[in-house]
């Protein structure tokens, strides 16, 4: 029952987020609006109830499984991409390496000085 109640709350926030995104015609998914609303709601409430904690933990554990069906599509891509594989691979691999490097550098640069030591908590 706890799990179901938590799941109901998550679904409710998703529906609320989806409604807001739809009504205001935002190009943002309902899930993200719901996530922000959930964070704000928890900040107002000050704590995570047992049901919500349980449901969110189990869903987050299965996040990988939920994106998997979309990923399978890459094994069934047709020949329409012939001749573009180099461009695709180059863009993805080099682009990601570059953007990770830049982000690491930016974030490390903007970190407060006192915080630049490694932390383990």
């Amino acid at each position, binding site marked *: 029952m706890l799990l179901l109640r938590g799941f109901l709350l998550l679904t409710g926030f998703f529906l609320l987020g989806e409604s807001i995104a739809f009504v205001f015609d935002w*190009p943002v998914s309902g899930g993200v609006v719901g996530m*922000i609303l959930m964070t704000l709601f928890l900040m107002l409430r000050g704590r995570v109830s047992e049901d919500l904690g349980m449901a969110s933990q189990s869903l987050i554990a299965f996040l990988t499984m939920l994106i998997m*069906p979309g990923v*399978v599509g890459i094994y069934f891509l047709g020949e329409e991409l012939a001749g573009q594989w180099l461009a695709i691979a180059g863009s993805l*691999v*080099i*682009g990601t390496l570059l*953007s*990770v490097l830049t*982000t690491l550098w930016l974030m490390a640069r903007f970190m407060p000085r006192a915080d630049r030591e490694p932390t383990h908590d």
Partner: protein
Amino acid sequence: MTELVQRWQALPAHLLDTPLPAIAITLLAFMLGTRMFRLLKQPSWCPPVLIASAVVALLLWGLDIEFSRYREGAAWLMLLLGPATVALGVPLFQQFHHIRALWRPVLLTLPPAAMLAAGYAAGLAWALGASREVIASLAPKSVTAPIALGIIDQTGGSASVLMGGLLATGVATTLAVSLFAPRLGIHDERVLGFVLGINGHAIGTVRAFEISPTAGAFASLGMGLTGIFTALFLPLAWHLIAGQ
């Protein structure tokens, strides 16, 4: 007897009228993928989703099920992606004190990082001669799947190319972070988590939760902010640069 044979032959089509075979295949592949991932000692270059999706592809091929059929059924499972995205708000709240302490680097890093993630991908694809559709599909490669699918609706990309791009990006991100961070002397798990989330969306976030809950919270934050920011700027930039 012949009637029984006929019924037997009609069985696959009958079962495939429901989404349950697709769901069973997905669950089975996920469990096998996770187990193999542990057996391989959790390699960062090969996340469970890569193994599991290969298992799905093999099962579909072995059972002679069309991919489009599978996707229809698995869409029932992917519906949970909405509530699961909302669920990320919980670790975000639980780790909020860490995030509040670092609001400045977070807000300064995010816009250039998200714009560069899309810019590098689109620029390189263009320079290497990719078609317009492929460039549109690759530009939101660092954005979490549900938002990225909404973005390509507006820029005219292909969902399959996008999903492939998301997977490759997620894998490349976990790889690049474990490769570059130690060399740059960055060990702060808040930085690592945030970088994983900005660049590697859900796959990077899963990796960050393997590091620690704090890294996971920063990754959720990075993923959410990148998604929102890119959803706002990319369609606009696309229309400005590519026209129509």
